[in-house]
């Protein structure tokens, strides 16, 4: 079933679906560029203090639960896979697969957040939350506090972005179930996917920077 101009999905300011798709795609990439710089500011701060206080950072990193971190990395990578498969399903008009894969993505995202919450709780119990409850037993407590400040700020911001992503996917599921996304028009799924992959990439960098410093000590 082909429609020459599908008015209900073509916004009035665009001349055709291709222009609309290009604009949406470019818009999302422009937004992701802003996100690179947004997180980037924190990566800079982390890098500066890691270069100034390498030992304190290394020792602080040993307090992280490497197994949970690795599991979370795998979970997020898997969720990126489910997202690309969801986009693929939309492009092939397979509505049930689309909904299923988006649901799976959300579930994986929730698993990630669950594990993260557990880690945060552990940190609280170990008195390693700067500004809230911080009693570090190693050397250079002030410098270790900087490590943990960046840990919570960066993973917290990342988690916030994941929550937003999950909400977006939930919205997409509602629309998908009503058959809104077809082979002709599935742009929202595609660009939501881009956002999710970006959030995955951020975690791909957060994992080694916070969990994998000097494990050989």
């Amino acid at each position: 079933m082909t429609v020459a101009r599908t008015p209900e999905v073509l916004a009035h300011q665009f001349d055709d679906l291709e222009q609309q798709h290009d604009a949406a795609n470019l818009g999302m990439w422009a937004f992701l560029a802003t996100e690179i710089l947004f997180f980037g500011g924190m990566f800079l701060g982390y890098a500066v203090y890691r270069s100034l206080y390498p030992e304190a950072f290394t020792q602080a990193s040993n307090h992280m639960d490497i197994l949970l971190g690795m599991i979370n990395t795998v979970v997020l990578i898997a969720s990126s896979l489910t997202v690309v498969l969801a986009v693929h399903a939309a492009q092939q008009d397979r509505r049930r697969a689309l909904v299923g894969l988006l649901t799976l993505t959300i579930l994986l995202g929730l698993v990630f957040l669950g594990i993260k919450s557990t880690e945060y709780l552990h940190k609280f119990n170990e008195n390693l939350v700067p500004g809230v409850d911080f009693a570090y037993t190693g050397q250079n407590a002030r410098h270790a506090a900087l490590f943990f400040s960046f840990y919570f700020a960066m993973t917290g911001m990342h988690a916030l972005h994941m929550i937003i992503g999950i909400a977006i996917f939930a919205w997409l599921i509602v629309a998908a179930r009503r058959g809104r996304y077809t082979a002709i028009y599935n742009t929202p799924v595609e660009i939501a996917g881009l956002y999710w992959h970006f959030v995955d990439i951020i975690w791909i960098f957060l994992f080694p920077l916070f969990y994998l410093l000097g494990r050989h000590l």
Partner: protein
Amino acid sequence: MSNYLNVNYGVKSWLLTRDHKRIALLYLGAVTLFFFIGGAAAVIFRIELLTPQGDLVQAETYNKLFTMHGIIMIFLFLIPAIPAVLGNFLVPMMLGARDLAFPRLNLASWYVFVTGGLFLLGAMIAGGVDTGWTFYTPYSTVYSNSYVIATALGAFIVGFSSIMTGLNFVVTIHTMRAPGQTWFRLPLFIWSHYATSVIILLGTPVLAITIVLLALERLLGLGIFNPALGGDPILFQHLFWFYSHPAVYIMILPAMGVISELITTFSRKRIFSYQFVAFSSIAIAVLGFFVWGHHMFVSGQSVYAGMVFSFLSMFVAIPSAIKVFNWTATLYKGSVSWQTPLLYALGFIGLFTIGGLTGLFLATLAVDVHVHDTYFVVAHFHYIMVGGTIMGYLGGLHFWWPKISGRLYPEGWAKFAALVIFVGFNLTFFPQFLLGYLGMPRRYYAYPEEFQVLNVMSTAGASILGVGYIIPMVYFIWSMRYGPPASANPFGASGLEWQTASPPPTENFAATPVVTCEVYTYPSEHDRGANP
């Protein structure tokens, strides 16, 4: 005739509009309100500065006044004004489009803007902030007893509005140009807004994260920027100025785009060396990111970094100078028409040149050591922001007013107001160059006796300037009811926006225009042997 103003009535039709033209007017209302609030703060502290003693307000209050003046003027007026008012209105029209790429995002950006603005005003009313608009740590994070977090959050929210606008412009300019409209057939207004949008997208997020870290630090007593806890206040300054220096180009580039349009129209001559002017906008946007350390020469950053930043800062003046030369060359042997928009454009060129040259003095590391944090700096940036940006804004507002409102403003009053503004401006800010050179620090409410005469001159100028700003407000509003109806192209200008009615219909054009030649063409060009 149905146009975007009368197509439907009622508050809801305005507050829920997706029409870029109506959104532009929503922004016009908001930025005008904020401008006068920011101006009121300035009136108060300029009155304080009539006398050497601090006698009108307390020191803390004075600190709050100049802080709020800076924050409101920069974030709620200078950054949004031209892009969100003139840009929103004109970018789609100059591209022959029906609207921007993302109309709902555009409306959302206005709501975000107003929300952020209300946050800032709320913080002001609750008691204000006394850190200076620069929020330097650790004063802002540890020692200040003022509403730092609320203000910072307000700025954060407004930043998002800015990003949304910039994103909309970039995508629109890339994907929605009219058939035949290649990049070198675009109006220079578009080039400058494109460059501005690039800066917005790449710079604003860094300010956003800086504000987040500032708020967390203050809230939780973290040590990221606190030397007592192993942190570095200079890191804050790096992050802050990485955005805030390019921000000044966000504030000036749109005005430069306006000036290009005014100069070509009112000399009825194509812009001299269009490509150089177009590329100079991109050059300013890029080079502007390499120089932020010139705000930090005496902060404690590495001397070698200072030298590099000083050296690079010289380069960013070059594309600006190219524009000034090209505008002047355009006027030369042009058929000049001395109407109000041109008066503002000429004022811009002169005042921006002074402001820009004094910027070079400041960029010279050794000189800056002496004039840093003095009124010399204050005069420099006001020459650019007020003598430059605001003149560009007013010139543009007058030029496109017939298109926007369908009415002509009263030319006599407009010329008079322009003159009052020019005189008032110079009387306000030229003495400040002298004050700074002679050593008067900025952000001080009390000063040595010998500086009083210049301060009195400055305050006198400010009152004249204030009157000058009120006059256009009055006659613009007057013209909406009583001004003579405007034709589609009252100034004989080039550009697609002038090929549709004044005011335009909601969809802008009955049919998408096709572009077949460069944009600045005037019939009499052939007589003078210029390129057809």
